[in-house]
């Protein structure tokens, strides 16, 4: 249709799409799905890290971790707001998470078992997320692109903090080094699966690229993350748990071993170590908070009525 052509031309000309602009239903739906998944990931992603706040080993680390988890709550808020600009209420979006209908990043279905996991999440998971998200800062949908600018800035701060934890552990006692290596062993493969299925198995990518929702392929993002992370692991004196990993002079990239996609899809489909618990925690918070939200709403309504009475 002419509308669609005009839309695509504006996209091609790198003019941002704004909430009030006309957009194709497919574009809207793709964005709603992607941004809400991203919002849910931030919100669920608070849980594995929050699990270590009470046990953080120094008060400074505790403060940094609390601030980090709080940032994730903030990211969740921007992103839920960005979804709302597409015409879906935040509660509806959220209820899809609670019912298990909507997805979130599978990485958060792995448990945090030691303090080193907090380092590994910052270093690897946030590192991987940044590689995925930096291109989104230039995405065609204005509210999403702007939210991502802020998110990326904070994430790279978190990534450095995570690396710093790993660095301290890797210079520490034998037990600390072992803890760091164990965390790398457990988080490496899930972190490189975060970029999504291999290109030859990925659906919808072409349309998302045309709409400039996505600008690089999953495999390209993965390669970028691996290339930047391997030297960091070497600097830490830690071994990445992939015997096939080695520098390929010709390609100018690291080669890496096959990813266990069956395991990845199992986790996506609900069979990860913590899927049940993460959803249960979210539902528990929501259900036990119902009386609170209702009361806050009731009070806000009372205030509004009082205002109206005064105005009348």
């Amino acid at each position, binding site marked *: 249709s002419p509308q669609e052509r005009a839309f695509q031309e504006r996209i091609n000309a790198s003019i941002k799409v704004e909430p009030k602009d006309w957009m194709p239903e497919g574009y809207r739906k793709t964005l709603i799905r992607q941004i809400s998944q991203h919002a849910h990931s931030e919100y669920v992603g608070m849980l594995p890290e929050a699990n270590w706040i009470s046990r953080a080993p120094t008060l400074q680390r505790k403060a940094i971790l*609390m601030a980090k988890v709080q940032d994730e709550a903030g990211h969740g808020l921007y992103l839920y707001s960005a979804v709302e600009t597409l015409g879906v209420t935040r509660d509806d979006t959220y209820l899809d998470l609670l019912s298990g209908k909507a997805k979130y990043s599978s990485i958060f279905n792995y448990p945090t078992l030691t303090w080193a996991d907090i380092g590994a999440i910052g270093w690897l998971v946030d590192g991987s997320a940044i590689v995925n998200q930096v291109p989104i800062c230039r995405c065609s949908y204005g509210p999403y692109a702007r939210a991502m600018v802020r998110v990326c800035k904070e994430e790279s701060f978190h990534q450095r903090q995570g690396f710093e934890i790993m660095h301290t552990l890797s210079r520490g006692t034998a*037990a600390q080094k072992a803890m760091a290596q164990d965390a790398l062993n457990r988080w490496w493969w899930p972190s490189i699966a975060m970029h999504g299925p291999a290109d030859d198995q990925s659906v919808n990518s072409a349309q998302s690229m045309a709409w400039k929702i996505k600008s690089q392929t999953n495999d390209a993002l993965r390669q970028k993350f691996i290339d930047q992370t391997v030297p960091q692991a070497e600097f830490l004196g830690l071994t990445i748990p992939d015997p096939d990993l080695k520098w390929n002079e010709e390609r100018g990239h690291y080669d890496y071993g096959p990813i266990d996609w069956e395991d990845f899809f199992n986790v996506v489909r609900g069979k990860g170590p913590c899927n049940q618990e993460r959803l249960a925690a979210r539902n528990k*918070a929501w259900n036990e908070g119902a009386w609170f939200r209702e009361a806050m*709403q009731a009070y806000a309504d009372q205030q509004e009525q009082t205002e109206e009475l005064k105005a009348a």
Partner: protein
Amino acid sequence: MNTQLEYLLRMGDNCLVLSQQLAAWCGHGPALEEDLALTNVALDLLGQARMWLTLAGEEEGKGRDEDALAYFRDGNEFRNLLIVEQPNGHYGNTVARQFLFDAWHMHVLAGLSTSSDARIAEIAQKSVKEVRYHFERSAGLMVALGRGTPESHARMQAAVELLWPYANEWFESDAVDEACAASGVAPAAPSLAAPWRASVEAVLDRATLKMPSYIGHQRGGKRGVHTEHLGHLLTDLQFVQRTYPGAQW
């Protein structure tokens, strides 16, 4: 007994223990906005705890820093008020605990802002700004929840009554309080009772909540005799340091 050291531990442990409790809500609050706001309060309190405990370590002069004091004392060496170690309960219990504490904390910090000890005055001046905001926030929640729905009203009234027994310890002057008041280091503990009551009563009034008419009888935290809750809180707090002694983190 170094009374000033004791006083600093009291201030620091209040902040540390309450921050630890609030942080347990992080990611589990009733709404994303609450998660953000409550974690802010927890972070402020943790920052204050670090300043107080660092100063306590200096005052003690045995080379203990904030972490040595936070991670390597057992329960009977903690000097926090009993109210801050009371369980989180439902969110309304947490709000009520915060409100009663904020009101006292705000007034004591205002007093400490003119401490004869410049280091104490400096920390207090910095903290009181944060805590005035904490009080504003918790007072606002008390009013909203007190007036919101019949259920929220009932929950908040019960929460106030549950915690009231713990809301007098801070006005009971002991040797430490008296010495610190005499030297101008701290305001006299009982002198805070009237301003606290005025602040609390005004808010409870607006919240349509009844102010209990009796005086709280629970005490002991200031001399290290706690409730059973503190011990369990410390098992988590101190686990990593205790398990890997001597490591740097």
